[in-house]
């Protein structure tokens, strides 16, 4: 459980033509909160997550976790990548226990938990398979299991279900909700799927087109535990309409700016 704060964070990539990816982003995320970042492709969502993970530094402003500057990447901030990023030369099991092993934990401390997690994500029978033998959705579940096994204080998820079909996607969303309600870690969840954002998050931040700012924040007060059935409730539809209007105006601003 971690508290995250971004203060006037900006990021410029100095490539051939400099790209301003983030502009003065302010963001406060409470301990144990589930936050969704919603924004158009290429606006800077991954950039923001990379800064939180410690993969990249910010050009301006400060990024804090529990009051201290965010340092190098580490097991306290578990990252779920868009394309799973499993080690293809390791079996599912070896991928899942990679983190605890790197941290030098004794086997007794993590093997039980790893087994349990594999069962939770429905991959008990695939422990000895290689990633090449799995479907995209299965790989993504391994990517989630290997992060949860480290019991991170924050979960940073970059469009983790973006490549999945609707059915698998819903199953994964429910799984994530179940796990999160049990662990109560802080979650920053990047997506460009409005339904997904509303279903999962306590608050949804709508980001503007590049350079990304936090356009607006929408608190989702749907009661928990939530399930896929909420997708068709009237409140849900209201939130959706609100967010769509917000995104349209953000897009419009970007067009005219």
């Amino acid at each position, binding site marked *: 459980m971690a508290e995250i704060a971004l203060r006037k964070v900006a990021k410029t990539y100095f490539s051939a033509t400099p790209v301003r990816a983030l502009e003065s982003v302010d963001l406060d995320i409470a301990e144990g909160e589930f936050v969704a970042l919603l924004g158009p492709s290429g606006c800077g969502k991954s950039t923001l997550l990379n800064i939180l*993970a*410690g*993969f990249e530094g910010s050009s301006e402003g400060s990024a804090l976790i529990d009051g201290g500057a965010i340092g*190098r*990447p*580490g*097991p306290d*901030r*578990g*990252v779920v*990548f868009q*394309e799973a*990023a*499993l*080690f*293809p*030369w*390791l079996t599912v099991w070896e991928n899942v226990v*990679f*983190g605890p092993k*790197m*941290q030098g934990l004794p086997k007794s401390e993590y093997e039980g938990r790893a087994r349990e997690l594999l069962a939770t994500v429905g991959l008990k029978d695939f422990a000895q*398979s*290689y990633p*090449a*033998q799995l479907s995209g959705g299965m790989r993504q579940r391994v990517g989630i299991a*290997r*992060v949860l096994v*480290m019991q991170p204080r924050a979960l940073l998820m970059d469009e983790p279900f973006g490549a999945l079909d609707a059915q698998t996607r819903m199953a994964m969303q429910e799984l994530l909700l179940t796990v999160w309600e049990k662990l109560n870690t802080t979650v920053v969840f990047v997506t460009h799927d409005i339904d997904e954002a509303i279903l999962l998050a306590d608050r949804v931040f709508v980001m503007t087109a590049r350079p990304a700012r936090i356009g607006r924040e929408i608190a989702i007060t749907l009661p928990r535990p939530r399930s896929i059935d909420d997708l068709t409730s009237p409140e849900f539809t209201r939130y959706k309409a609100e967010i769509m209007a917000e995104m349209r105006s953000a897009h419009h601003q970007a067009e005219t700016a």
Partner: protein
Amino acid sequence: MTDTSVKEAGSRPAGMAAPGSRALGSALPRILMNSGLAQILIALVLPVAIVTIWQLAGTNGSLFGGVLPTPDRVVSAWWTWAFGAKGMGLNPYSGTWLANVIFSTERVAEGFLVAILVGVPAGIWIGWSRLGAQILDPTVQMLRPIPITAWLPFSLAVFGISGFSAIFLIALGAFYPIVINTTQGARHVERNLVRAALMMGAGRLDILRRVVLPAALPAIFTGLRIGLGIGWTAVIVSEMIAVKSGLGYVLWDAYYVGRMDVVIADMVSIGVMGLLSDQLILLAERWALSWRLAGAR
């Protein structure tokens, strides 16, 4: 060939016995073409044809006015070389084939091992670290255009007429493809894999050992195969000049005394050893990269 076709037909379930004569007619040759035995037979057609023509073109056991011996002479020369009694004054090669094969193979193995032990870590360092690239790469690139044959006198001067001279040249020759391919492999490690490892608490050495090295492995094996080929070239060249034993030494010596039958038997021996050692690497590659094939199974 007939054997396989009978078996294939026999194993067909009764209900499927006759799926129409036309279909059967086109399926049968395909089954024959794909069976392992058939592939070996097809592969043998050209060599057998060449050897046959070569044999038939000769008169009194030689071609081109005695320069080139016919295959039967080569085989009999090899037989004496391999199984003849040792120490017969007139034929210094008699009974020395295995010993010479072992001499050369050992040198290749030793030089190749040195090349791996130096080339792989160096390549990983160049490919992974900017500092490594700045320190090592220019020197490697500057030395690389010097062919190993040009190193022969240097090697002779430093190591003298000895096996070390050959091992040095083999190691040097095999080093370049190994280091260059390893560099390529280490340079193109997927960024997110490294980030994932960092995120899970891996240290610098863990990243090199558990991420960069395995990610570079396919490229490394490409380098090993090329390097081994150069290793065999190097051993022959250096044994011709700098060492008094091994297949390269016999090759040159036999040429000098006009024993072309031994020369050709020696060439074939080199080819066979090169092929076998390459197969060994392929085997190791299949084992080490089994995770890649897993998906295709």
